[in-house]
């Protein structure tokens, strides 16, 4: 194990091209998925936190179910939808990603992460005082200004929602394996590569990938904590 650890450090610092490619695919897929999940999840969470409408409980129940959705089930669902015989795959529209592409992986990861972003954002908004919006209006805020202020007030919770979304994506293996296919130099990510290298018995590479995955996760979370900044201290 110690040898594996030392070999992994050598691999990281020698700039192995296969390793670099895996890292770049992981970062690209995770980054795009998280961005789209955030763009969907935060407005949805705010809407659910602030608005009353018929069927809201059902929507929230579905959202909570989505927060605990097994990634392999999401992978299976996306696989069936995007396969050539599937309802979306057979349409042949150019904007619908094909199986075994990073596009398909992004779709699966969005489905996994956006309920987490929306759910935690909703909780953050609900934790604000119910009369705050009235107070902001009474101070002359436009609806947009009031909404922005409330989002800023709920910033710690909103950032936690993004961290949760990021965590669910970066560590995910089942869905990306199913819809991405773990193709070298194309859809191989850190997690799927770890599975592959472990099966091959190349523990040095598997450990190197594991260390890199943990390091990326750590750096992103530290960056998020810095963004939370003083609000967290208070």
């Amino acid at each position, binding site marked *: 194990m110690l040898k594996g650890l030392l070999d992994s450090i050598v691999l990281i610092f020698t700039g192995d091209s296969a390793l670099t490619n895996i890292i770049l695919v992981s970062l690209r897929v995770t980054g795009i998925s998280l961005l789209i999940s955030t763009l969907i999840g935060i407005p949805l969470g705010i809407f659910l936190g602030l608005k009353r409408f018929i069927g809201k409980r059902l929507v929230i129940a579905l959202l909570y179910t989505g927060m605990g959705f097994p990634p392999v089930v999401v992978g299976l669902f996306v696989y069936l939808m995007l396969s050539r015989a599937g309802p979306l795959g057979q349409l042949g529209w150019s904007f619908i990603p094909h199986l075994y592409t990073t596009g398909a992986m992004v779709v699966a990861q969005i489905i996994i992460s956006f309920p987490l972003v929306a759910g935690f954002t909703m909780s953050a908004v609900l934790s604000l005082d119910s009369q705050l919006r009235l107070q902001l209006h*009474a101070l*002359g805020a436009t609806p947009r200004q009031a909404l922005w202020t409330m989002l800023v007030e709920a910033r710690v919770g909103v950032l936690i929602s993004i961290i949760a979304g990021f965590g669910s994506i970066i560590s995910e293996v089942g869905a990306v394996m199913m819809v991405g296919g773990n193709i070298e130099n194309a859809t191989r990510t850190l997690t799927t590569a770890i599975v592959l290298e472990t099966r091959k018995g190349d523990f040095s590479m598997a450990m190197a990938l594991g260390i890199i995955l943990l390091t990326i996760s750590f750096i992103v979370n530290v960056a998020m904590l810095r963004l939370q900044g003083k609000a967290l201290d208070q």
Partner: protein
Amino acid sequence: MSESVYQLNTLVKRYDSRTVVALDSLTVYRGEILALVGPSGAGKSTLLRLLGLLEAPTSGSLQFFGREVANGSAQADLELRRRLTMVFQRPLLLNRSVQANIAYGLRLRGDKSNGKVASAMEQLGLSHLARQNTRVLSGGEAQRVSLARAMVLDTEVLLLDEPTANLDPYNVNLIETAVRKMNAEQSKTIVLVTHNIFQAHRLAQRTALLLDGRLVEVSPSDVFFTAPADPRTAAFVRGDMVY
């Protein structure tokens, strides 16, 4: 009496089937302090939210500066809404500094000046707390920040919902002095909801009693507290009212 700021007629506010406010008529005049008193659940805070254009009445007429606003149109009319401001019973401060909280309404209006903020902090004894986050303030300090935040806006109308509830005499005195000064020097129209009938007597030129959402009596404070027309007012003032 001078020009009316609010004119209410057959105003009703219901939540589901429960009638919370049902007023035949009430006028609030420019430059006066009107105190709304009554037991808990009498509809005082709901009436204040209606006057604050934060909620639309279920039926009836509510005129604000001569404009009918009962249909809820005023809620979308920013210019009209910005002629008034309201201080809630709980301070509802933002998680930022005292100074930033007080400046909040000004910044919404694109006013970047700090002169009014400094002056309001000075008047309410908050200058030394300017950079403190509001999370560390005492109840009295928080309520003074809430009042300062409304004061700096220089609106024509100020609505106060129990601004001194649960505060010590020092904070009560600071807030009452500021309210009195705004009314005397700026002729600001103030509607004050309070459980404290002594405060109503001290501050208000007129006092109104609400019971079960209905207006029992509105009269000059001296008359209200010494020779009320309605026996229920007399019972309320004496503290005999059971509710």
